[in-house]
């Protein structure tokens, strides 16, 4: 039992802090938001140069061999800086699924290109409400002699506009009992339609439609079998990573608010001289500390060698606890900034929106609370 970070972990945090401070100032951020891809490609190359695109991948494919704890360190700093790069989509979702489930050919073909920053991927899975869970897939894939035909519609696909390849989940209606399969779909495959829009607070989001989209025989990820358990594992770890990102965003909002209340004067004295505001800041501070602790805990547990129930409990638990804390810190940060807080002139509004994004991704606080209730009950009756 020792929760102090290792020397390598301290160094990673230090570099991430420095990188964010250098590349994610307010001006650079606004600039990145204007980019039709939602981020600046040169930043992505820098992430590759720093080795971070390979952070969670095994060393045999050129990765760094890090785990969720290292990912959390990076994500927390991404959150502080409101980075909009498709790290989640390319590395943590699609990339990790390739690393875990891909054939040797797929791993060797794609992972090095991901790690060196050449290839971007999206993860196209949801088709309706996240409350329905991860098994709710109606997109179908038919096979014939020439390969695969994909038919269906995916919503809320993050970073699809910049992706070279979409990883798409689908059902195989003819085969029995294989559940959900994953397909690697080149962006320019026939029958693929992309409708792109700005994402709340930065980045892009899209709807992807597949109308009898034609795919080669080797487009299917892996060598068969149901991908749902792998998807659930990757999404649990993605949730833990988003929790760390949210903890970083909270800290930035808190710091900005604390500074503001020390500087801004009303009735001849700083806002922070009001006891109501001091106490509210104290509560926000407590929630920031709580969020950081819960994110660290989730990172430790989703990476630990435990059963999937413990992993999912850790992820859902963190999403609930941090979701509540982030919501309150975001709302209070806006409130304490007064009228300035509801304008587009500060970065605060972007953080507020990103907290909404955090809540919406992979299921709301209430969804994860229900999931926690169910899993916790199961874990004890076993």
């Amino acid at each position, binding site marked *: 039992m020792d929760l102090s970070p290792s020397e390598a972990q301290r160094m990673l945090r230090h570099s991430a802090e420095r990188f964010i401070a250098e590349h994610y100032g307010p001006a650079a951020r606004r600039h990145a938001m204007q980019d039709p891809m939602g981020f600046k490609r040169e930043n992505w190359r820098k992430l590759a140069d720093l080795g971070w695109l390979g952070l969670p991948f095994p060393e045999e494919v050129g990765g760094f061999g890090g785990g969720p704890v290292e990912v959390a360190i990076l994500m927390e700093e991404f959150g502080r800086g409101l980075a909009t790069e498709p790290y989640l989509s390319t590395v943590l979702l699609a990339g990790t699924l390739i690393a875990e489930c891909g054939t040797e050919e797929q791993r060797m073909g794609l992972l090095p290109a991901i790690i060196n920053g050449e290839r971007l991927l999206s993860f196209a899975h949801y088709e309706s*409400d996240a*409350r*329905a869970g991860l098994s709710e897939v109606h997109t179908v894939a038919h096979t014939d002699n020439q390969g695969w035909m994909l038919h269906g519609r995916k919503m809320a696909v993050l970073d699809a506009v910049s992706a070279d390849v979409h990883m798409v989940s689908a059902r195989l209606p003819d085969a029995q009992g294989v559940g959900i399969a994953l397909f690697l779909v080149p962006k320019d495959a026939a029958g693929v339609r992309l409708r792109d829009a700005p994402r709340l607070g930065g980045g892009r989001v899209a709807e992807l439609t597949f109308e009898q989209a034609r795919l080669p025989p080797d487009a299917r990820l892996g060598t068969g079998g149901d991908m749902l358990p792998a998807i659930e594992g990757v999404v649990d770890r993605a949730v833990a990573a988003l929790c760390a990102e949210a903890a970083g965003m909270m800290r930035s909002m808190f710091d900005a608010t604390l500074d503001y209340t020390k500087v801004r004067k009303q009735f001849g004295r700083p806002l922070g001289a009001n006891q109501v505001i001091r106490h509210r800041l104290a509560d926000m501070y407590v929630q920031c500390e709580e969020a950081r602790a819960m994110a660290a805990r989730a990172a430790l547990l989703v990476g630990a060698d435990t059963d999937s129930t413990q992993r999912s409990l850790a992820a859902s638990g963190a999403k609930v606890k941090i979701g509540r804390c982030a919501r309150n810190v975001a709302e209070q940060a806006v409130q304490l900034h007064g*009228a300035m807080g*509801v304008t*587009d002139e500060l970065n605060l509004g972007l953080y507020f929106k990103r907290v909404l994004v955090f809540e*919406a991704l992979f299921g709301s606080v209430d969804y994860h609370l229900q999931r926690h209730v169910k899993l916790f009950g199961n874990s004890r009756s076993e």
Partner: protein
Amino acid sequence: MALSCTPEELRFRDEVRAFIAARLSPELRRASSLNVSFFSDPDIVAPWQRALHERGWVAPGWPQEHGGPGWTAPQRWIFESECAAAGAPQLSPMGIKMVGPVLMRFGTSAQKKFYLPRILSGEDRWCQGYSEPGSGSDLASLKTRAVRRGDHYIVNGTKIWTTHAHFANRMFALVRTSDEPRQQDGISFLLIDMASPGITIRPIMMISGDHDVNQVFFDEVKVPVTNLVGEEGRGWTCGKYLLEFERGGGVNSPKLRYALEKVRGLANSDLSYKAISHPEIATKLSEIELDVQTLEFLELQVLSALQRGENPGPVSSVLKLRASEIHQAISRVGVEMVGQNALVEERRRPLHALNDTPIIPEGVLSVVPRHLNGRANTIFGGSSEIQRDIIAKQVLGL
């Protein structure tokens, strides 16, 4: 005590309903329901105000001598409720509920005669010049200065958070005409023509991307002395009267009920994947329903007291505090219901005039911007912190 309507009240309600059915077009309803700003766009408001003006129903709270309809308090309530329930655009309060009552109370007869009819007709569109950078909650510290020169005041300074300054042709403003030991004593209440040379307007974008508020700069702006309301140096009295009227004069719950019904409709529709079937959504909607019922009842109690000629007491801060919190709760549950559709940021305006199909359904488009703008509910018009200060001081004697 009776919560139900009398037969006369029911007849009046039917009259209002018939009027709305006849004059509120489906296009106007749609546009109004897609409105995400605090106030509606003038191009939505104008046709509705014309219809109301023809009927003499623009200003339910005004005395008949100035063009009010002469309604009882329950009639005003019924009118507000029916308009809100039908999704009618909201008229700007800045003429009708703010500067209008100030002019009736403090204006010269020439001012009343000139301005009041133009408020009713919609010919004049007013904005409010109160807050300044550094003088938000602490309004009395304002610095915009008006110096008398002959028959004019020369105004220099700046106002901020000026809603609809870019649509308005007139502003009522608090300005400093002298320096007194008590800051409030040097403030005057001026009416300013927005076409005057020397006025520039800087838009301030809301976090949703909406353009509602502005900063207004005054550079040697000439304002005729006849545009002074009340005595010079007594503008604080006018300003306070207006704030009281603003807070206590209106009712909030009809609008809240409309917002709640809209979000409940969403919960029952496929747009939210029938979110109502999830217990956490259903219970939140019930809790908000109870909060709205409570506010409705409190507001009806105020109306009953007013109707009996009693003073309802310093309840306006209570109503503002709760209304703003409930408003935020409604818009928040809306965001929860639309799930991942909340990821899409649509910044183009107005939403009713988009000429392509966004990737999320129209019924969901307004949910996130309304939530974002709604954060201002507990900030603008006296923040929740200020309201609690007022309750503690004025009601509790603390």
